[in-house]
């Protein structure tokens, strides 16, 4: 009978537990702040029980009341858990839900459902409620898993202190036994007293130690555990500075020292004492400890910490701990460096690509702009000026009724000059012969023009090429044009030889002069050679090769090879 009341109390306690749990996890409590009113249910239950004592027939009503109370409390618990779980999605709450829900479900299936439908129970309320007893066990288990590590530590400490106290108590008692007389019971009492006194003393000492010196009891096992934690925390570092910062923090916390330093040493400022340091080995010099953290070809990282104003020496465990930690740190640094190297490699590759792209674009753009500017300047200085001059001249003739034939003749001559120049520009911009007469005739004309203008002796051997690709024809024409222009402007040569021929579907162009030449690098860099640079790009666009051989004052040789029939991928290149 009493178990009915206890069942209700268990449920209420569970609600109290949940409230504590919610506040611990900083979750909002979704139920009444004050829930002492739940005890009314217990009181009602007590009254029911006492009525049953006098009137057995009331027992059925008592069952109904009990079952409904359990249902109310169970649904409150359920509501709290489900609400909490769906609001915060904590795994622990889910686990808690299982722990609490399964006994209640058991109770409902064994007790309430059969009673409602069969009017009898499969088990008494006490047995059905047995499951609920497991709730506290489950809760205890849950709470313990959080603290099991600490428990291990407490047990270890207790064992250690007990052993110490026990042995010393036995030794003291034996000493007392030897020098005095007494009953066995007396000795046992003394022994026990000594034992407990020492145990108490040790615990007191530990508390004082912790408070005053920040020294705590440690065992070997605990160091390993600490190392594990330290390595984990240090491993979170994202860069070298962060890594060193974390290492310093761990060291100062665990060894209770403030004076921790990581020195960067290179060959120049290296002391002799640092040369003997090796990885994973502590060296003590005066009151300072040194160890090598990491070394690369340029510099060494040396860890130094001081035990001045502190304990005399580090224990062996502590040394081992530090040494292991530094080995791990060395590994971290090595890995970090590899990653950094790879990252910078990727970065430089990226940069190189984008740099190349923009570099070419800029070059092309500046080339075109330069050409445009030059053309505009030339047109302005020649054709435009002549036209303006003619406009003025004709204008002055308007009022003059008698225009002589000679005057008109002169104006016509000037107009012819202007159109001659304009035609030269047009031919230069877009050689008309190339489309109407083909490469052969166009090259002939180009050579004739060069012979008319250049001072050097020009020797040409031009084979008649039959190339269908119009763009390739233009490229060859432009190559020749650019080579001639370069020779006229920059070579200072007295003799230029140029050969164009086809060999096994490869167009070959050989250029040779006896001019001032240049260093190979200059061809790539000076703005004067932008034309050459542009030619190279054009040849490369046709999968061809462009080789320059030149030395200062030893002339220049250029060999161009362009394979025929190779597709030109980017037709926009020329029109751009």
């Amino acid at each position, binding site marked *: 009978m009493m178990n009915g009341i206890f069942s209700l109390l268990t449920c209420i306690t569970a609600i109290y537990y949940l409230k504590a749990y919610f506040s611990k996890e900083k979750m909002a409590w979704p139920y009444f702040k004050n829930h002492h009113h739940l005890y009314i249910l217990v009181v009602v239950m007590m009254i029911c029980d006492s009525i049953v004592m006098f009137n057995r027939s009331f027992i059925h009503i008592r069952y109904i009341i009990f079952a409904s109370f359990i249902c109310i409390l169970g649904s409150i618990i359920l509501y709290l858990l489900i609400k909490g779980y769906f609001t915060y999605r904590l795994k622990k709450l889910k686990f808690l839900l299982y722990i609490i829900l399964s006994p209640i479900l058991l109770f409902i299936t064994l007790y309430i459902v059969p009673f409602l439908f069969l009017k009898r129970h499969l088990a008494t309320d006490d047995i059905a409620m047995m499951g609920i007893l497991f709730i506290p066990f489950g809760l205890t288990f849950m709470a313990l898993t959080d603290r099991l590590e600490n428990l291990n530590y407490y047990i270890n400490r207790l064992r250690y202190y007990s052993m110490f106290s026990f042995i010393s108590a036995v030794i003291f008692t034996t000493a007392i036994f030897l020098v005095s007389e007494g009953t066995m019971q007396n000795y046992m009492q003394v022994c026990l007293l000594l034992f407990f006194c020492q145990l108490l003393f040790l615990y007191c000492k530990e508390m004082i130690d912790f408070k005053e010196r920040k020294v705590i009891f440690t065992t070997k096992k605990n160091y390993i555990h600490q190392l594990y934690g330290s390595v984990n925390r240090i491993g979170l570092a994202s860069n070298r500075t962060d890594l060193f910062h974390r290492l310093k923090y761990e060291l100062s916390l665990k060894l209770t020292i403030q004076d921790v330093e990581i020195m960067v040493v290179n060959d120049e400022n290296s002391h002799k004492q640092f040369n003997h340091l090796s990885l994973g080995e502590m060296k003590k010099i005066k009151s300072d400890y040194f160890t090598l953290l990491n070394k690369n070809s340029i510099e060494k990282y040396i860890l130094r910490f001081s035990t001045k104003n502190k304990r005399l020496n580090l224990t062996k465990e502590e040394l081992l701990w530090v040494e292991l930690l530094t080995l791990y740190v060395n590994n971290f640094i090595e890995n970090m460096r590899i990653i950094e190297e790879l990252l910078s490699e990727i970065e430089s590759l990226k940069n190189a690509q984008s740099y190349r792209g923009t570099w070419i674009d800029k070059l092309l753009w500046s080339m075109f702009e330069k050409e445009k500017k030059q053309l505009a300047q030339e047109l302005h200085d020649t054709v435009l000026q002549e036209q303006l001059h003619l406009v003025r001249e004709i204008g002055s003739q308007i009022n003059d009724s008698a225009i002589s034939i000679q005057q008109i003749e002169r104006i016509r001559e000037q107009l*012819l*000059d202007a*159109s*001659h*120049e304009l*035609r030269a520009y047009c*031919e230069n911009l877009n050689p*008309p*012969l190339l*489309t*109407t*007469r083909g490469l052969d*005739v166009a090259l002939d*004309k180009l050579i*004739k023009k*060069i*012979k*008319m*203008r*250049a*001072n*050097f*002796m*020009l020797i040409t051997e031009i084979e008649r090429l039959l190339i269908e690709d119009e763009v390739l024809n233009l490229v060859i024409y432009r190559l020749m044009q650019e080579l001639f222009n370069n020779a006229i402007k920059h070579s200072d040569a*007295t003799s230029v030889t140029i050969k164009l021929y086809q060999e096994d579907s490869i167009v070959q162009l050989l250029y040779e002069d006896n001019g001032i030449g240049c260093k190979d690098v200059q061809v790539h860099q000076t703005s004067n050679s932008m034309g050459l640079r542009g030619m190279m790009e054009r040849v490369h666009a046709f999968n061809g090769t462009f080789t320059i051989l030149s030395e200062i004052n030893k002339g220049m040789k250029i060999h161009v090879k362009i394979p025929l029939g190779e597709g030109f991928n980017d037709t926009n290149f020329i029109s751009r």
Partner: protein
Amino acid sequence: MIQILLVDDHPVVLEGTKALLQNVEDFEIGVAYDSTNALQLMNERNFDVFLVDINMQPVNGIELAKMIKNLCPNARIILYTGYDLQDYYDLILSKEIDGLLTKAVMKDQVIHTIRGVLRDDLVISNDFVDYINQKFKHSTINSQTALTEKELAIIELVAKGYTNKAIAIEQSLTQRTVENYLTKIFARLNVESRAEAVAMAKDKGLIE
């Protein structure tokens, strides 16, 4: 009546040439703005002379001339262009065309050339002879190496390394005139380039 077809894709030039020839009594002028148009007109009526611009799109004047000759072997074709005539002299040698005109010529010369080609005469500038000479490398004027005063002055400047532009300024000439002089000098000395001309002139003791 002489039936003439003008083919040019520049409307201004086309109309200008038409206006130039329209008032000639025995000329009847037709105009076409491209090759397709020209071939269509050829189906409708016969033409005696074709005056064809060279630089046309997409079919150029030289290609059109071939088509016309194929269709009508008796047709006379005169190419006219704004560019150098010398570039097309070989077309006369190969009889692909019957005459050449520059767009800068005057009315008389156009009429003269049209009438010339109809009489099977070759009406052409006398530098055609230089072209022939150079082409066949047997100069008939080899002995006539005497240069005029102006030509000597120019070749001397060439020998000093002056550019054509610099020579033009020095001699108060236009660059076109200087280049004309140079062509004459090259023909006289039977050479093709400035360097050769200078060497030849020195060789012959014309300059120091």
